């Protein structure tokens, strides 16, 4: 663990409340007087800002401070949890008294912990909010607005949003350990509305990661977001009706990896499998994908939006193989579910904030590259849809049905892209969609850093990625029969 992070966390979270780690140890001790299996205290401070430009002016800015603690006691599969915005000893102790009441039977044996050796930090413990002066943030947003308007006279509206978060967490666990992490996160997004002969269409693009604002100035990133937003709106202005029915679909690389997130990722989260409510329950070792598919969840990629030095229970995330050459290999675990399933935590215990108990969540989920070139894949399709980019998705983990919505798509005929078609929702069945992946591209790409995943009312930043894929049969929800 980074000593620097621990120093910052102590200074930010404990000192203002006149607390020392010894106080947290006392609270943990109080929790452990009850027969609990798992106990922790999570303290968090987050300072965020966001700026919004529209109509050519930066008209909104927001600054927020969120801080507080969450105290948890777990006994078997039962969780007691309390939180408060007021970090002080008495509140912590009261919370501990409340939550430990969940424990009413003798505790099981203590679980094995995931590896907790120190390793290279994936991002620096910086406060990104001050890495660019406010004048420079405003100037950047205004420049992007002008760039967009100069690029195409059909641009009617440009909306630019810039946001940053500085987050400090400190976790005290039942083993008497303290884990700290300082998590920067920045995001820039451009969206444009274009009009042509009375028809309006939208395009948007953006990116970010666990770094600082200067990231957007490097390699002309911000400018490429503008170009991409405009390109998408231009394509949509020419798009015709989307097809309806079951057909061959070629999925683009990068963000379309939201397919993996919805179709299999959620279904492999430990809680649903322990409870037996997932369509993937009890299927480890089964063939759930074609042999060309290998899918991982990897929280160890430097500076990625979904990456974490430690998860929200203090476990370092790993590189977890979910599917290897088509065979289901593993689930994603937090401590509670790992213990109940006799597995090790995989570093996927995450929470939106101190106000939520941790649950198994994805980090960066992607499919490894295959052998085909994207051109070969398109050329192999007689008739079908090329879905190059997507919006969000959703899954019913019990029935396995999932959806994701294309935002940029083309019709393929005789191996050639012929014309753009409107976006449409695609629907499939998680446990068998990957068995119909017949070609995997050699162009693995991760998304630019825009993903947010919601589960049980908790939102967390995530990443996705994939190479170009050919799926032999997905239902496309257009209007043209």
């Amino acid at each position: 663990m980074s000593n620097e992070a621990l120093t910052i966390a102590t200074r930010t979270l404990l000192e203002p409340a006149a607390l020392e780690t010894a106080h947290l140890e006392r609270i943990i001790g109080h929790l452990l007087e009850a027969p609990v299996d798992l106990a922790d205290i999570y303290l968090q401070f987050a300072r965020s800002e966001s700026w919004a430009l529209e109509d050519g002016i930066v008209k909104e800015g927001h600054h927020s401070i969120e801080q507080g603690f969450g105290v948890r006691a777990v006994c078997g599969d039962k969780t007691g949890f309390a939180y408060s915005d007021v970090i002080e000893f008495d509140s912590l102790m009261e919370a501990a008294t409340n939550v430990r009441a969940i424990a009413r039977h003798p505790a099981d044996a203590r679980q094995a912990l995931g590896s907790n050796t120190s390793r290279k930090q994936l991002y620096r413990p910086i406060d990104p909010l001050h890495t660019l002066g406010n004048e420079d943030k405003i100037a950047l947003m205004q420049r992007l607005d002008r760039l967009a308007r100069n690029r195409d006279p059909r641009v009617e509206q440009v909306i630019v949003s810039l946001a940053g978060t500085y987050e400090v967490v400190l976790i005290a666990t039942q083993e008497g350990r303290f884990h700290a992490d300082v998590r920067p996160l920045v995001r820039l997004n451009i969206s444009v509305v274009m009009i042509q002969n009375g028809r309006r269409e939208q395009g948007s693009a953006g990116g970010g990661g666990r770094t600082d604002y200067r990231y957007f100035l490097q390699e002309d990133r911000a400018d490429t977001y503008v170009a991409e937003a405009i390109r998408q709106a231009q394509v949509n202005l020419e798009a015709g009706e989307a097809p309806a029915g079951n057909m061959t679909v070629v999925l683009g690389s990068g963000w379309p990896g939201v397919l993996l997130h919805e179709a299999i990722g959620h279904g492999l989260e430990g809680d649903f499998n322990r409870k037996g409510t997932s369509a993937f329950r009890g299927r480890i070792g089964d063939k759930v994908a074609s042999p060309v598919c290998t899918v991982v969840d990897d929280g160890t990629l430097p500076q990625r939006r979904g990456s974490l030095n430690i998860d929200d229970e203090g476990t370092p995330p790993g590189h977890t193989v979910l599917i290897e050459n088509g065979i289901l290999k593993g689930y994603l675990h937090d401590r509670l579910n790992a213990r109940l399933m006799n597995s090790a935590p995989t570093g996927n215990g995450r929470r939106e904030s101190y106000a939520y108990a941790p649950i198994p969540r994805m980090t960066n989920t992607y499919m490894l590259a295959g052998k085909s070139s994207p051109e070969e894949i398109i050329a192999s399709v007689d008739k079908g849809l090329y879905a190059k980019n997507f919006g969000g998705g959703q899954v019913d983990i019990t029935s396995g049905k999932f959806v994701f919505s294309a935002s940029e798509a083309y019709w393929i005929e005789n191996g050639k892209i012929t014309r753009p078609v409107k976006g449409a929702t695609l629907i499939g069945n998680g446990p068998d969609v990957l068995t119909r992946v017949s070609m995997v591209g050699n162009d693995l790409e991760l998304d630019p850093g825009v993903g947010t995943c919601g589960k049980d009312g908790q939102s967390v930043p995530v990443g996705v990625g994939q190479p170009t894929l050919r799926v032999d049969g997905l239902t496309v929800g257009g209007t043209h029969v």
Partner: protein
Amino acid sequence: MEALESQLKPLQDKVARILEQAKQLGASGAEAGAGLDLGLSVTSRLGEAETVEYHCDQNLAVTVYFGGRKGSASTSDLGDSSLRETLEAACVIARHGNEDPCAGLHDPDRLATRIPDLDLNHPWQLNAEQAIELATACEQVALDASNEIVNSEGATLNTHHGIRIFGNSLGFLHGYPASRHSLSCSVVGKRGEQMQRDYWYTVARDPNDLEAPDKVGLRAAERTLARLGARSLTTRQVPVVFTAEIATSLIGHFLAGIRGGNLYRKTSFLVDSLGKQIFPEFMHIHEEPHIPKGIGSAPYDSEGVATFPHDLIDRGTVKSFILSSYSARKLGMQTTGNAGGVHNVIVDPGRLDRSELLREMGSGLLVTELMGHGINLVTGDYSRGAAGFWVENGEIQYPVEEITIAGNLQDIFDNLVTIAKDVDRRGNIRTGSIWIKEMTVAGKR
């Protein structure tokens, strides 16, 4: 819950103080809101408590104006130094932002002066054991409903009550307490290899108005069982009925389309629709912000403007947009008291109940669940995942899943055949089931 009511005055004082400090820092106008919320949430699964969560949230948000420059900031730490830092952060943002001629507080004459008591506060004196008991009883009914109910995601009871304060530099300062309670249940059914889940919930301001736990459990089980044996459909164009619970989403898209922010940004398919007919003649949609105990009820909006009952659609024609002071100024109109959203939107029902409606339809799709976010508000293009039932001769034939339904919202509104009288009264939007003449259904068969 005297403890919470006693916080009303101190929290009001904090809001007053921050408004005063904003003035001292040179702000030409300021508004601030604060809230404190206490809650208990328990989930019971397979007959035993699974989670017990104690909630305690507080926050304060302030917006300052320096002429046409605006900045806002919020904090969950209500200590003096954090409040000071928050106010200063808002001022820094305002100083750096651009002059916006439309920015500023609302006109003083729109200020809520007579504030109605909407009977929103009915705290529930319930401890964790009692809450677990209710949730467990609810789930048990679902588990016992059939041996095809094989698993459960549990039953969850939530009870919250809190206070909200709002003040601005026009002299407005008011606060009121409100409560909200809910009970939901979700169970898993299995037939052959197929598993399905569904849920039901009840929500109310007053615990006495909640549906009984056994009814919630039974309904959850019935809905899950009805889905077992679901199959896909062939691709076709057919009539579609949205059940009342999900028909609210169609009305929600209409509301998004007439929301001021989407209109002045030109990100709505309903730009310039005021005074135009976009629904059939019989449609009447209105906002009723003062319904006693209403889930969406509010005496004033999030900028202190008095809310008032008004028509959104009359005889199928757009009568009003949904505007805050800011979006109203952008459009050269008057605020409609909708800063922060709508308050109880009512769609007047027709005369048929749901089974009569299905008989009138004959053959078509009855949609009970929608998935994903496939709505393009700019163009009105609509494409979503769906599940429900195939209907023939007015009778449900079998459950369907893994299908999509698609169309364009403007066409969908034009082709609205009728609204049933089976109104779902739980939420902020109240409508009966909605029958659309034709949509494209895509399936894998």
